[in-house]
């Protein structure tokens, strides 16, 4: 195999690079925000736990989006995205940590979820009870870890041995993985977020969380790519790759808007109290402004910004849009979760900001750590050459 255009210096992160300094900064931020979480927990456990759930869902969003994009890459046998695959793969390394992050949730079940003590919900107790909830969450993680071991791990093994059967196995497992992934993320979203309001239900809820997650994950991937490019790495990734990433970001964001509106339209049309309660809750007090901000900030503004071709090929505009969308996903999750904590007004303070920083710094540390350990491009992927020559 004849690989052109790749120089070693662009593929391995230099151990003395400034990127590692950023990692140290992220570590400091992570420790500080963790400390703030603990202090807030001592002062007001409920507020801290709800914020923790928010940070946790955001962290898992990014991790699962990384897994999803890796799976889609393999399942479609895509050529162009070989050079960006390591970025999406590195996000999946957050999943094992996610299993640890569930422990505070399990300990705080009684505070977070009314179904764990509400006797009006006896008829749902078969599904909504503490033990089954914990078992289910562990089950989802075991499925994700299975996919991770079958699809992500072999990719790193391929760096050592040039073996086509590894790629073929990843293709096979990613197809199985996508089906499993679709069910598990849907049920996970229902368990973690929808049951906060156990009387309310929406069949599209899992897809809603999924749609928001893949946008946020893609935005995070673009930001990591932009950071690496700024430091002189991944120079083989040209503006045609960026353009395709931009198109995906744009398209998936429209998909999120489509799902969000589908949920709203059906509930609005049906006008059944047990369903409309969800949106009614979010029109009380300052929640009304938050509800109006979401379609504007999560859909209309990014739509306008990313509409033109030149914006998608411009790394600065694309990065700014990505930061914005990453924030908007957090606002989206905040809008889903927090009305259950504070129905009168949208709480906005240091803790909410800390939660966002905590989640992003944790993901950043893990991603940079993994990227630093392995080549930034799967050097022995049989389709690498096609990806390097990617054009319009």
């Amino acid at each position, binding site marked *: 195999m004849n690989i052109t255009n790749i120089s070693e210096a662009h593929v391995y992160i230099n151990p003395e690079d400034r990127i590692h300094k950023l990692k140290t900064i992220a570590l400091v931020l992570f420790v500080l925000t963790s400390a703030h979480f603990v202090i807030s927990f001592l002062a007001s456990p409920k507020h801290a736990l709800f914020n923790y759930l928010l940070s946790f869902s955001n962290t898992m969003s990014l991790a699962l989006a990384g897994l999803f994009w890796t799976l889609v890459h393999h399942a479609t046998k895509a050529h162009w995205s070989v050079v960006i695959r390591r970025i999406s793969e590195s996000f999946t390394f957050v999943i094992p940590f996610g299993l640890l992050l569930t422990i505070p949730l399990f300990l705080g079940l009684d505070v977070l979820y009314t179904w764990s003590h509400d006797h009006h919900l006896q008829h749902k107790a078969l599904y909504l009870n503490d033990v089954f909830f914990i078992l289910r969450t562990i089950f989802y993680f075991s499925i994700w870890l299975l996919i991770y071991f079958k699809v992500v791990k072999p990719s790193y093994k391929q760096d050592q041995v040039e073996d086509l059967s590894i790629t073929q196995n990843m293709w096979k497992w990613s197809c199985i993985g996508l089906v499993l992934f679709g069910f598990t993320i849907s049920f996970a979203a229902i368990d973690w977020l929808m049951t906060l309001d156990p009387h309310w239900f929406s069949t599209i809820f899992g897809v809603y969380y999924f749609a928001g997650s893949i946008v946020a994950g893609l935005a995070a991937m673009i930001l990591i790519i932009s950071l690496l490019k700024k430091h002189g790495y991944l120079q083989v990734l040209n503006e045609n790759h960026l353009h395709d990433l931009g198109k995906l970001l744009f398209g998936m964001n429209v998909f999120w808007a489509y799902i969000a509106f589908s949920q709203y*339209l059906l509930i609005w049309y049906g006008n059944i109290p047990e369903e409309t309660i969800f949106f009614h809750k979010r029109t009380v007090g300052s929640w009304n402004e938050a509800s109006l901000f979401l379609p504007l900030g999560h859909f209309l503004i990014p739509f306008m910004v990313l509409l033109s071709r030149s914006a998608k090929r411009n790394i600065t505009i694309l990065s700014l849009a990505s930061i914005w969308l990453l924030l908007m996903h957090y606002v989206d999750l905040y809008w889903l979760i927090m009305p259950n904590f504070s129905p009168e007004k949208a709480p906005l303070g240091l803790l909410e900001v800390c939660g966002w920083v905590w989640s992003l710094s944790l993901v950043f540390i893990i991603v940079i750590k993994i990227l630093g350990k392995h080549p930034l491009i799967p050097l022995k992927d049989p389709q690498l050459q096609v990806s390097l020559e990617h054009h319009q």
Partner: protein
Amino acid sequence: MFKKILSKIPFLQKKKTYKGLACQFGEPTHLLESVKDLKELGLSNIEVYTPYPVHGLEKVLDLPRSQVPWISLIAGLIGFVVAVAMQWWMSAVSYKINVGGKPLFSGPAFVPIMFEVTVLFAALATFVGLWVFCGLPKFASPFENDERALRSTNDEFTLYVCTSDPQFDESKIRNVLSSKKCFNIRYLGEEGE
């Protein structure tokens, strides 16, 4: 701006001369090299006919970006406004029906149609715009009697320099082409009005 766009629509223009020097290529790389060298002669009226899109050709030919996206955008916006106006007039003005106690002008119910009409207008305008800017339908071409030139729809590439080009200088062009791997250099078409 408007005049500029109009000047790009082939079928609104006066008939130009269609006489030109043409040659054939077997390989896209040879074609690309020749276009590069001819561009250095200052020629601006070079046309290239290929059986499939050749990457990098738009760069060597210095082709401007297509204007069609603007047409799509404007038509889409018009479609959006039309959809809003139409539904407002039908549901809130002309034929008022109370549906489930909802307001006569209820945004959420109208959104799917706003979306559909926006897409419909944009898609149709893109289609028509593409035809207009490509000069379609085209019923006559200097190529239709030249068998080799017709091969550019199959397995050869045709390069064509119009004699009306101000920098047209036959000996210079032949000089450039003779050093390239091209064949069948000949005049095509007739002088127009």
